[in-house]
């Protein structure tokens, strides 16, 4: 999945590159818990598994996956907090 990341505007970026523990998804969950409804969060991950496990959690938790963009050696995964 690929999307343009220019819209909506990213509220906060979480740099979880190189994070094996707690890992990018746990860092995203932390940020979502701290965020307000409508905030758009962008998490950077070098863990290939994030492309699967972050969208799965986002769907289960009722938020919106805005997009995933592969950049220079990492993925930028953008999520909007919906509730």
């Amino acid at each position: 999945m690929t999307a343009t990341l220019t819209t909506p505007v990213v509220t906060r970026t979480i740099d979880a590159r190189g994070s094996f523990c707690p890992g990018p998804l746990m860092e995203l969950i932390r940020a979502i818990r701290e965020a307000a409804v409508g905030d758009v969060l962008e998490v950077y991950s070098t863990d290939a598994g994030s492309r699967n496990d972050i969208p799965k959690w986002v769907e289960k938790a009722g938020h919106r996956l805005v997009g995933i963009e592969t950049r220079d050696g990492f993925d930028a995964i953008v999520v909007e907090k919906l509730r």
Partner: protein
Amino acid sequence: MQRVVILGGGVGGTLTANLLVRKLRSRIEQDKVSVTVVDQTGAHVYQPGFMYIAFGAEQEKHLKRPERTLLDRDVHLVVSEVTRIDESSQEVVLANGQNLPYDYLVLATGSRITPEELPFFDQEAHHFYTAGAAARLREALDAFTGGRIVVAIAGMPYKCPPAPLEVSLLIEAELRKRKIREQSEVHFCSPIGRAFTIETVSEMVTPIMERKGVQIHTFFNVEQIDPDRKVIVSLEGEELPYDLLILVPPHHGAKFLVDSGLAPAPGGWLPTDRHTLQVGGRPNVFALGDATDLPLSKAGSTAHFEAPVVAEQVASAVKGIAPDMKTGNYEGNVMCFFETGDNRGTLLQFDYEHPPHPPTPNRLWHYGKLIFNRVYWFTVPQGRV
């Protein structure tokens, strides 16, 4: 006189202070430099031991020593709470009325638990993040004769990511030993889509949990406790009933860091450079251990590996030279023991570039952890390992 002030007398603050005076000894003896640690209690606490209290294998008295006894003679110790940091005047304002001016500031202020954030936590849930709470959990386990034990996580981030999983496995082993396993259920709620965040560890531990009948609930982040129905509710919208509830409480950074404008609310974690450990681009302020916002395990081990980096950064700045690029560059090193029950454990060792490849759980790493718990006092704070 150049003044280095270190806030926090835990692993990170103590080790940084001791390493710094070694690097700056002659300047300290000539009164050109001072190194001061500020700690709110004056007692150094070995927090990894708390979990063992819950299993009757440790006592609080073995987990606490006077901070003074762990510090080099050339380190000043001030026992006081910190009220705020005044960056404009470069002073730390203390609750005891004293103001400590600094030229270099090291923030090793750790994390604090806030169970009160979750309604009914104190009434319904146990945890093992203080010695007292772990002792109360021990009493609850002693009184437990059967039913459903649920271990779950009520906030992110939290200290020692493997700990709740370890507790699930240790409880299962204890129930078997006490011959009440058949009338009991052990449930572990993982915040993510597998048992543990590190895939290799998850692949290793999941079959162990399945063999032992520890039930895994994935994508379960606790949001509410319903005390009337004795259920926990996840932010993903699921419910799970409990008879004995063990929850990892929410954690935050020190409040005065938010009040002083160094860390953002609500988390209170310091924005820290992942390699230099500088805070928010400030050339003279550094952070380590739980206090940072780095995507790393909040664990003593992280602080242990970060302290030499901060010591090198500060010492070179004091000397007016460039830091050594090897010693003064943090690569994300962490090393953690992982108890899997039945006197077996494994070891997780990783950095930003290299994931862990834990050995099959064995007795060596279980007893290695127990030995480490004892020799800690003579090795880590002094920088001997």
